[in-house]
């Protein structure tokens, strides 16, 4: 492929013999390089405009005697991914941090430190992230010699929160159990009067060991776990996983499968976006919007149940295809529901944008600056509301997205209102996509048997969920089972930008800012 050759030439001219390059699957470039070269390569890739979308590690001591890190960069213009791997010897458990040059690496590196015990040398903030303060030092759950059901003792705390101190500064701790029906996280606001000057978020409360749980399982056995990493983005995660497995096993699914997946992916986006547009009203106490949003969302969820048997679209996907078909009757029902939804949603949106008390609270609130969104690699509607023109569906088409036409809305303001508007526009686009797909459903086999997978081969699957890009990394072990699985959800990269949007706003605005990002905790904590 010519598009990859240019990048290969550029990399070879910089690193010569020091880098091994191989084309893999249909849209990946696998690089191997010495760990000390990684900061130089990262800067080059950054300057060429390839964002870091994932960074993770694998304990391959049983196989090669080394740990290995995998850095995934995306070339959005030419639709391919660059996966750089570096080996880390057991005698030297550290690697050079790239956070100072590629800020998006900051959480990944801390997580690798906590879960694998590899030290990111030069990282500006080495406090624990993925394990909590009462986790004993020297225990690393994702190493292969850590047994899954080990009962970990609790130790004395070693964590400190970032706080601003001084005259008149108050500390307001909130959570992990919140007042509403939401997931658990702990926030520490440093505020003067009502105005927030610093926010520190503490997460990973819902860490359930989902990645480790899949290790040693066949792709099919691990699948119900994948579907339960996140409730509201269940199908998107499932599709990312299927993509990676299908790449590894050289399985090509039929066009019909791709079409069905696209319909379901868009239904998932619809129920989330419609629900979120309503739910954001709850953050400003505008019950009219909340209730109508909830009602319309319920209509879509009932449609999901009638057509696919599950309100959260579970049990449809499977590695190698889909387990459910869409009949002509189903198709008619979907179209009729969407017609009604479109009318009602339009009416709701008109009323919302015409209500001064609502507009007053969402305009200029919680601004995410374009530069921060880019540096920390924010994704999804949150990034598009801050002028970042990225959408996996267009830039790295999967399922049937190259067979439909749709617009990617982008706004520059970066406030709550812009995030709402991106969702509104995308709702109409989703309805359109589904209409286009259902109008031209091709025939095809629903399930393909998976081919043989090469041991220790790895692949990346990527989809655009309602919250943004979900990236799944899978490495296969020697007996056709999963060796390492890493889920990088949209929330994982969007969480770190939130603290930057809050200072300068008042504490009562935090709920609406938070809701406008609609972040999920369970797929971040895993």
């Amino acid at each position, binding site marked *: 492929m010519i598009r990859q050759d240019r990048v290969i030439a550029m990399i070879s001219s910089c690193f010569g013999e020091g880098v091994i390059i191989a084309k893999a699957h249909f849209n990946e470039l696998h690089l191997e390089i010495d760990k000390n070269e990684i900061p130089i390569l990262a800067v080059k890739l950054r300057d060429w405009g390839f964002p870091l979308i994932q960074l993770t590690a694998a304990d391959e001591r049983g196989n090669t005697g080394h740990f290995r890190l995998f850095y995934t960069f995306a070339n959005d213009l030419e639709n391919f991914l660059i996966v750089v791997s570096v080996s880390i010897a057991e005698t030297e458990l550290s690697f050079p941090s790239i956070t100072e040059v590629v800020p998006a690496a900051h959480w990944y590196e801390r997580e690798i430190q906590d879960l694998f015990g590899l030290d990111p040398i030069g990282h500006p903030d080495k406090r624990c992230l993925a394990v*909590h303060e009462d986790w004993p030092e020297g225990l690393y*759950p994702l190493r292969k010699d*850590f*047994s*899954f*059901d*080990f*009962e*970990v003792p609790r130790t004395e705390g070693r964590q400190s929160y970032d706080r601003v101190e001084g005259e008149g500064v108050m500390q307001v701790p909130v959570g*992990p*159990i919140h*007042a*509403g*029906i*939401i*997931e*658990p996280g702990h926030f520490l606001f440093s505020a003067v009067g009502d105005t927030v000057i610093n926010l520190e978020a503490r997460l*990973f*409360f*819902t*860490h*359930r*060991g*989902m990645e*480790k*749980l899949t290790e040693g399982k066949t792709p099919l*056995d691990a699948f*119900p*776990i994948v579907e*339960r*990493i*996140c*409730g*509201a983005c*269940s199908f998107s995660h499932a599709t990312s996983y299927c993509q990676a497995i299908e790449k590894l096993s050289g399985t090509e699914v039929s066009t019909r499968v791709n079409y069905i997946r696209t319909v379901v992916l868009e239904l998932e986006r619809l129920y989330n976006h419609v629900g979120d547009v309503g739910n954001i009203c709850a953050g400003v106490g505008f019950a*009219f919007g909340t*209730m*109508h949003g*909830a*009602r319309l969302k*319920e209509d879509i*969820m009932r449609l999901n*149940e*009638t*057509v*696919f*048997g*599950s*309100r*959260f679209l*579970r*049990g449809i996907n499977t590695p190698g295809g889909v*387990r459910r078909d869409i009949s002509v009757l189903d198709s008619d029902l979907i179209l009729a529901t969407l017609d009604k939804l479109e009318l009602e949603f339009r*009416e*709701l949106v008109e*009323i919302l944008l*015409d*209500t001064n008390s609502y507009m007053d609270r969402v305009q200029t609130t919680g601004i995410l600056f374009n530069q921060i969104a880019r540096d920390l690699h924010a994704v999804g509607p949150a990034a598009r509301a801050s002028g970042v023109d990225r959408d996996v569906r267009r830039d790295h088409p999967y399922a049937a997205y190259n067979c439909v036409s749709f617009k990617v809305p982008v706004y520059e303001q970066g406030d709550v209102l812009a995030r709402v508007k991106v969702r509104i526009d995308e709702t109409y686009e989703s309805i359109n996509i589904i209409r286009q797909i259902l109008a031209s459903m091709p025939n095809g086999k629903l399930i393909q048997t998976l081919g043989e997978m090469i041991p220790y081969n790895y692949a990346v699957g990527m989809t655009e969920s309602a919250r943004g890009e979900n990236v799944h990394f899978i490495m296969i072990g020697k007996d056709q089972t999963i060796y390492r699985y890493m889920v990088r959800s949209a929330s994982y990269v969007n969480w770190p930008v939130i603290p930057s949007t809050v200072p300068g706003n008042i504490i009562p605005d935090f709920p609406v800012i938070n809701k406008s990002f609609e972040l999920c905790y*369970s797929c971040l*904590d895993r």
Partner: protein
Amino acid sequence: MLRLFRKSLKTGTVTTDYPQTPSVPGTGFQGLPVWQVQSCVQCGQCADICPTKAIKLQSGKKEAFWIVDPKKCIFCGYCVEVCTRAIVQGEQYEFVESVDRAPQVQAFKHSVHIRHLDSGSCNACDWEMTTLTGPVYDIQRMGFDFVASPRHADVLMVTGPVTRNLEIAVHKTFAATPAPKIVLAVGTCACSGGICGKSYASSGGVNNIIPVDVFIPGCPPRPQALIQGLLKAVGRA
């Protein structure tokens, strides 16, 4: 403003009257698998494939060879697919189970206040609880409401298997809830650990941490099942 009222009037009432009118999910619903004794050849494939070990086989017993525990089943349908002869996907979703501890129901005859406690769920169970407060299920019509603090609550609805990082928060929330109190385990994770099981990160079910009075299985339970669980908890069903 006028438009706002007009819209609300035009929409009318959308609230269901469940449980007065039962709600039957359509065909194809991913419900609890049903075993048909006559066609079973006792091969045991179903138990092998079940990801949560929800199926128990008792060899030698023809009539009750097969038992599925709803508190463990995640409705994945794998057993139905592996066994085309004797297992079909059922439509049943209301299997609330309550521990007979003669709860102090008298105290909860009228309005009941609920506190949600997320102990590590995947958020699907939480979203279904949120729908209970929406216009369609509207549990306020039955005298239930969610409150912001455990100190104001009669009932704790716990989702998730209780992760290591939330165990202390669960203990504290339970202690902060004034007696008499009822604990509901919502979802398969909360009932038995579900897909998360018991591990370094998960304690394998709420009952291992605090005493549970009512179990509401489902992954996630339908909103109607949640209503049934609540009614049962206060002795109204």
